[in-house]
């Protein structure tokens, strides 16, 4: 009973009279919902495509950034050696 009640739709009477056929009403609702679904999926796909584009850019830049840091690190390690030597000399 409950399930049957849930599976009933309130269609505005003027619209119902205009269409005039339950079967056609159901069909139009299905087509309307499917059109919405298509629009929603298209939006999700567009969002995903943008996200992938952004991530790819980040992914391309990261190795260069890491490489730059490795260079700075190498130089800082060299400097540390010099600083320690000078510090020991000055003791």
């Amino acid at each position, binding site marked *: 009973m409950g399930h049957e009640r849930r599976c009933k739709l309130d269609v505005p009477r003027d619209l119902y009279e205009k269409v005039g056929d339950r079967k056609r009403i*159901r069909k139009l*609702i*299905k087509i*309307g919902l499917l059109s*919405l*679904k298509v629009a929603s999926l298209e939006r999700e*796909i567009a969002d995903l495509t943008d996200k992938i584009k952004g991530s790819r850019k980040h992914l391309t830049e990261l190795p260069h950034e890491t490489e730059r840091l490795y260079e700075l690190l190498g130089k800082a390690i060299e*400097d540390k050696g010099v*600083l320690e030597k000078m510090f020991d000399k000055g003791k």
Partner: protein
Amino acid sequence: MNIQRKKVKKIALENDCEILETAKKLGISLDSEAIRNIIGLGMGSFHVESKLKQTVKELEEKKEELESHFKKIALQTIKLEAEYVGVRNQYGRIFRDNRVLAMHLCAHTPMNDHERRVRDMLIQKYIIDSKLA
């Protein structure tokens, strides 16, 4: 007697609960106004149900494919970011060590010109311009 005519007509969906499932997935409540709009969309659609179902299927497949691709990129990014953060932290530690050593050197008197130049350059680098890259 003033009998008011009901403004809605109840329509049973019979075994066709696909409508309810689709509406639920889309987060749409099927009140009479929403139904009016949805029927309006249905009337305005140039496509038949089977064509729309096919389109939905294709789009869902494409979405799945993109999601899987995005996950792969995200995994690669996590690995590279971990390496980047590791190197950055290591560099930060060494830089701070060098800063402390350079501060101690400020009080030292250099032995010769070369040492003075090196000392001044390192003091400039690690104290005066002390910005972490």
